[in-house]
């Protein structure tokens, strides 16, 4: 089995009174695609943002290739080969499609931007993903929900990251565009030089591309299973069982 590129040990994160992560332990093997699932508000995005250097954990450690690191910033994480698609997409409405697609990764002939090259590449990447936009020159404020998401996904997927973190990359994508992006992820996996964590609520999609699935519950990874040993049904049951318990707890504590 391949060595772990990323290990997360005992990571915790609180926001004021809210404990988003309590004690997360997770590992990502080289070339692996890991699916991360969990309820709304379970802390998936928070975990991803810690891995991308955006948040700093309150406690716990991260290791890259077995070496402990402390990610100071997104830029730092990116310099170590970690790239991320955020759930909120992180697009700048005022900028064009192609500038967004190359944001903070611009092609330059110093000191000037190489706009023509970026424009061409942007159009090509969108075509690969089956997404059509009116023009790559248009401001992203004017795009549809799916078009916006495609730009955010393209930004990371076409970077040369070693570790890709995808937070609900398919949420707004059409059936066709979603399938094409999954194809892309599969191609990346087959190339073998990138490891991926992908969050999605559509378990069918998860099982289509992932090697392994982790379930985040109560601030920790409560279930870790290879694709071959689970199914959409099992995952759904797991989540709903959790729901029943929650309902139970809630009726116990209601009125407080």
């Amino acid at each position, binding site marked *: 089995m391949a060595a772990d590129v990323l290990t997360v040990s005992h990571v915790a994160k609180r926001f004021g009174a809210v404990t988003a992560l309590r004690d997360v332990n997770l590992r990502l093997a080289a070339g692996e695609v890991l699916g991360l699932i969990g309820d709304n508000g379970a802390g998936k995005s928070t975990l991803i943002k810690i891995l*991308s*250097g*955006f948040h700093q954990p309150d406690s716990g450690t991260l290791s890259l290739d077995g070496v402990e690191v402390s990610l100071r*910033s*997104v*830029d730092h*994480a*990116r310099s170590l080969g970690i790239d*991320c698609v*955020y759930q*909120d*997409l*992180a*697009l*700048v*409405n*005022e*900028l064009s499609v192609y*500038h967004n697609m190359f*944001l*903070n990764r*611009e092609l*330059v002939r110093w*000191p*000037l*931007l190489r*706009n023509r090259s970026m424009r061409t590449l942007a159009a090509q990447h969108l075509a690969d993903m089956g997404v059509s936009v009116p023009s790559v020159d248009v401001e992203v404020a004017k795009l549809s929900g799916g078009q916006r998401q495609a730009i955010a996904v393209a*930004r990371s997927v076409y970077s040369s990251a070693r570790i890709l973190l995808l937070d609900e990359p398919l949420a707004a994508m059409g059936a066709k565009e979603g399938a094409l992006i999954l194809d892309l992820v599969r191609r990346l996996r087959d190339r073998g030089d990138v490891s991926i964590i992908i969050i999605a609520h559509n378990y069918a999609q998860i099982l289509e591309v992932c090697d392994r699935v982790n379930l985040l519950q109560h601030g920790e990874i409560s279930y870790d299973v290879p694709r071959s040993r689970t199914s959409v049904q099992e995952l759904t049951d797991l989540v709903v069982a959790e729901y029943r318990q929650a309902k139970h707890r809630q009726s116990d504590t209601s009125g407080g």
Partner: protein
Amino acid sequence: MIALRRIGDEFLKRREASILLVAIALMAYFQATTGIFFTESNIVNVSQYVAATAIIAAGQVLLLVSGEIDLSVGNVYTLAPFLMHYAVDFWGVPVIPSILLALVLSALIGLVNGFITVVLRVPSFVTTLGMLFLISGITLITSNAYPVPIPTAADAFAPWLGAAPWAEIIWALLIIAVLHAVLTSTRWGLHTIAVGGNLLGASEAGIRVGRIKIGNFMICSALGGFAGIIEAFRIDSIDPTAGGTGIMFAAVASAVIGGTALAGGSGTIIGALLGAVVLGVLRDGFNLIGVDAYTFDLIIGAAILLAMISNVHLARLRRAGRT
């Protein structure tokens, strides 16, 4: 014909087209009513109304686009020529190094503004308001509030630095050209827009948002100092009542008239120049006509409103017509 129309179309595509049309219309009006608008001496006058404001406005555009504002830049404008004067006349520093020193100190004031805003998280409106008073105090204390002449050692440089009729506007155009390129064609400009447009998103994308903001504070402040110095050379006196909130206000107004959003994320440097031109032409034109001070306010207020309403209307026509 077709080539002409192509140029016309290209022109109309630019965001600054409508405000340029407004400026041209105003000039035509004043030429028609006074008959002397387009004389060399008057164009020089207008250019001098415009230059210092435009330089500060360009710096303010960068800052506004990145989502901040600098209220103290008008006071840096007042202080900088005094700094030059102290260096030359009291500390015996040669002229050019003195000017550079004044600019570096101006930029440092911007650095402090940026630090307090970005790192200590005080809103820039308040940071730079405090800085405004602080610098004004420094200027008053160190200068005793007396205007002083330009150092005689600087006489040789004076024509280059603003005393010659066209010197100021040439500096302004150079600075505008460079900053326009910075904002539209470099990473710095792109990141400035990103930081102002979506601060959270920009930092998620790994942009060092603090660095961009602090840098723009420094640029704006240094430009304020430079504008103050060349204006001092022009009027041949270092004046402790020059600048202040008046020119800061005019600069922000030029930026906004030129299409920069106060909320950040969008703006154009050339627009700011044209905004300053519109304000300068109005001031000069009504002075040429010979409007009294009291009526002046009334008329200039009405003219600003009319000019901006036509500008917005023209811009909408332009967008509607674009295919």
